[in-house]
């Protein structure tokens, strides 16, 4: 039953400012009942966040737009599936991650990059194969502009598998704890850590290679 006292206010509709937990709960109840004004308020409030999250995963505007469309269509049609056991923002985050991952998996791979080529290699005795390992962090400013480095990281991120990319995005860009990533993606915490470490090693390897050093 939706309380009669709650009407969608102009502030809620604009999507500006903070929504209190109670206001959000009431808006969602209204969305579940098919109230389009409440849906618009939820859309306005969350669209930027969903877009940024989608963009981080799919890597381009056109696909991010598709993801946002689909996510909000699902919010409207499947709002009843939101039982309020978690925060709405968490539910929406998971929904966005899943839609974006599906989009990524449908994408034809441009070029297969072997992650192994950028992994550290070790001698039989367990020490680094190529020594010395260069510490390029000391004079990184001399090498390349930060913008260029960001491009390399972005390109390398796009070469990760959809699941690895999602793990890096959630961990290193969203600062999400491993158990939450595990729950969102439906994999074990151990798998999250293994994927994260391997993906970071790959990204590190790509940066190192770009600077002209052996990534291994």
């Amino acid at each position, binding site marked *: 039953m939706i309380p009669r006292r709650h009407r969608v206010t102009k502030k809620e509709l604009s999507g500006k400012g903070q929504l209190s937990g109670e206001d959000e709960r009431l808006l969602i109840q209204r969305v579940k009942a098919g109230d389009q004004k409440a849906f618009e308020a939820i859309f306005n409030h969350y669209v930027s966040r969903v877009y940024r999250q989608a963009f981080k995963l799919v890597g381009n505007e056109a696909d991010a737009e598709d993801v946002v469309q689909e996510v909000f269509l699902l919010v409207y049609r499947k709002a009843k599936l939101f039982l309020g056991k978690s925060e709405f923002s968490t539910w929406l985050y998971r929904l966005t991650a899943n839609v974006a991952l599906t989009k990524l998996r449908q994408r034809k791979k441009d070029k297969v990059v072997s992650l192994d080529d950028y992994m550290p290699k070790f001698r039989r005795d367990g020490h680094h194969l190529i020594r010395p390992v260069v510490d390029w962090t*000391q004079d990184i400013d001399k090498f390349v502009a930060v913008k260029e480095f*960001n491009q390399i990281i972005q390109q390398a991120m796009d070469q990760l598998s959809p699941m690895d990319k999602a793990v890096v995005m959630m961990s290193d860009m969203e600062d999400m704890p491993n158990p939450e990533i595990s729950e969102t993606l439906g994999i074990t915490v151990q798998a999250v850590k293994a994927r994260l470490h391997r993906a970071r090693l790959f990204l590190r390897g790509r940066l190192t290679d770009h600077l002209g050093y052996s990534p291994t």
Partner: protein
Amino acid sequence: MVKKAQVMRVNPKKVDTCKQATSLILDYLTGELDSKTKRAFEEHLMVCPDCVSFLNSYKETIKFTLSLSYEDIPSEMKKRIRRFLRDNIG
């Protein structure tokens, strides 16, 4: 398939090799190593400049990933999506 060997499941009391040290980096950075393993990891770093360099570049990579910034949704796109939703949920 993720190679499980990349992250060590059992923490060693001794870190003799760079391979062992590399497998512990993730847990070291999140403070998840037990005190003995942490000490062993740090003792290895004291005698292995290669692993210090490797650790520094690993940390710097995380910083670069964190610093990636993304534009807000273009207003035209927001309008298009709003139109799409109005047409599809009516």
